[in-house]
């Protein structure tokens, strides 16, 4: 088991318009670790993801990826280092097909995305690879469907296929089960368990079934602070967590 930290947050803070959203966050993800990040609405989970991936700049603190400071890098540079993320609110290439969406990720990873002297349709390896990733998330039969016509649950899976197709070292999933039915959520858990493999995972999710099924450690965020951190059993036994977050759901 590798134990080098993949991601380190050192005293990271962020506020919007003078209102602090995250205060002095310390977070370390080891290689291969699967970390669940939970907390009530407004706890700062999505802001934290945006800070890690470069969507918004940090006000204070350092973010290190594999020991390298990335605090000041723009999103595309952080992505190229190996940080892939999904989106809570679906963010796909709506005018393209399933295959074309995934292809966008693969072309970039292979460094082919701005070639001007080759026909895209003739780069066979990319088409085959895109089909492979579509198959991983159960979209193998919908390769040529335009995204707009895909049912919501399938679009959720495509979102994850885009992340996987980049082969990122750190996968960040922002509420992958948002808006899914119970059956779709069970399918999603099965898909994710099958595809994440040895990669490091940071999972933000409200659905505790998803969190417990996929995380080996859980961090609880509350009012912009880390409230608790530990194995799932420890966290669910924690008095503060029960009181503030899990609340009546546990009682």
């Amino acid at each position, binding site marked *: 088991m590798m134990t080098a930290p993949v991601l380190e947050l050192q005293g990271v803070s962020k506020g919007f318009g003078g209102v602090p959203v995250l205060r002095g966050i310390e977070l370390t993800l080891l290689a291969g670790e699967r970390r669940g990040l939970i907390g009530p609405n407004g706890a700062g989970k999505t802001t934290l993801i945006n800070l890690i*991936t470069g*969507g918004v700049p940090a006000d204070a603190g350092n973010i290190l990826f594999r020991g390298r400071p990335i605090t000041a890098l*723009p*999103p*595309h540079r952080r*992505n*190229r280092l190996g940080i*892939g*993320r999904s*989106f809570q609110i679906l*963010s*796909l*290439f*709506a*005018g*393209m097909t399933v295959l*074309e969406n995934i*292809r*966008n*990720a693969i*072309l*970039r*990873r292979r460094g*082919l*995305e*701005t*070639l*001007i*002297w*080759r*026909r*895209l*349709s003739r*780069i066979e390896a990319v088409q085959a690879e895109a089909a492979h990733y579509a198959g991983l998330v*159960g979209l193998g*039969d*919908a390769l*040529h*469907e335009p995204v707009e*016509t*895909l*049912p919501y*649950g*399938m679009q959720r899976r495509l979102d994850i296929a*885009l992340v996987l197709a*980049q082969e990122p070292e750190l996968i960040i999933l922002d509420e992958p089960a948002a808006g899914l039915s119970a059956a779709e959520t069970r399918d999603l858990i099965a898909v994710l368990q099958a595809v994440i493999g040895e990669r490091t995972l940071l999972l933000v999710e409200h659905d505790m079934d998803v969190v417990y099924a996929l995380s080996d450690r859980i961090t609880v965020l509350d009012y912009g602070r880390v409230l608790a951190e530990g194995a799932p059993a420890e966290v669910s036994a924690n008095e503060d967590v029960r009181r503030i977050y899990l609340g009546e759901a546990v009682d």
Partner: protein
Amino acid sequence: MSHDSNAAFEPAIPALRPKAERRAKFGWLRAARNEVDLSGTVSTVVLLGLLIAAPLFASRATVNDLGQAVCLGLFAISFNIIFKYSGLLSFGHAAFFGFAAYAEALLLEHYGNLPVPLLVLAAGGGAALLGIFLGQICVRRQGAYFSMTTLAIGAFFYSAAFKWSVVTGGTDGLDGFMPDSLTILPGWQWDGPSLSQTYWLVLSILIPAALAAWALLALTPFGNAVRAVQQNETRAKFLGYNTHVVKLANFTLAAGLAGIAGALWAVDNAFVSTDSIDLTFSTTVIIMAFLGGTGWYWGPVIGAVLYIAASDWLSASTPHWQIWFGLAFIAMVLVAPGGIAGLAASAWRRLGLR
């Protein structure tokens, strides 16, 4: 490429079934269209053939008009490259056309012994460089802010052409810059070229340039990146795309093409004035593009041809022809935002799938 849905998948997406069936029926047609729009390819080939052969059967006046129309057509295409592929509306695109037109006039005046295609590429290349520089300023801005920035740039270039009369001839413009003998290639010269010769010279540069830009955008990974960035810039960023560079490259391509159009305009007309760089011209190109159709790469050419035709026919009967042209533009935007190309495409689709 089979579209057979397996049993497990099918119930999940009942809405897809009728489409899938239709697709099976016209699979070959769709497959061809996926790659290269079939109707587009056929009409492009036919139109290009007619265009090249025009001096063989058309009157001098028509050939003269066609020469202007194709230059404006390429200009309108270049405007639409920014609009259609990057979703940005430029109000100052004539800056690149006019810059290259003046540059071409000056190059012909001072280096008239060099091959004309070389001078055209030099003027176009100059416009592309200008595009890199000005694009840095404007493509980071979105929507109205991009448009306002380009408007300011357009106004600046118009003022410069208007005021800097030592170089540009001011309100008189530049003429008499065409050398008596045009060098086509080293060792190949035309003395006092005829109207048809000039027309073919223009086409010999213009058509390859337009086709190359089309191929770049329609077929290559670069064109795919441009479309991806336009459809979802945020996602593209988080997939590792340097979206600024992609948009800047597309803007530069459009500036270079506008430059080639402007340089050829100077060759074709043997005259350059502030008409080719003023703000009115920047709005004329918008009208041409929308009238022709912004959804199809070649659509704006239709608008350019109509513009020239209208300026010929309507101006003979009324001095206020631009009002009628403007009204046609308004009607088109309200009734058929896809322009004439959009109307034709929907008619074709209805025929093709019946």
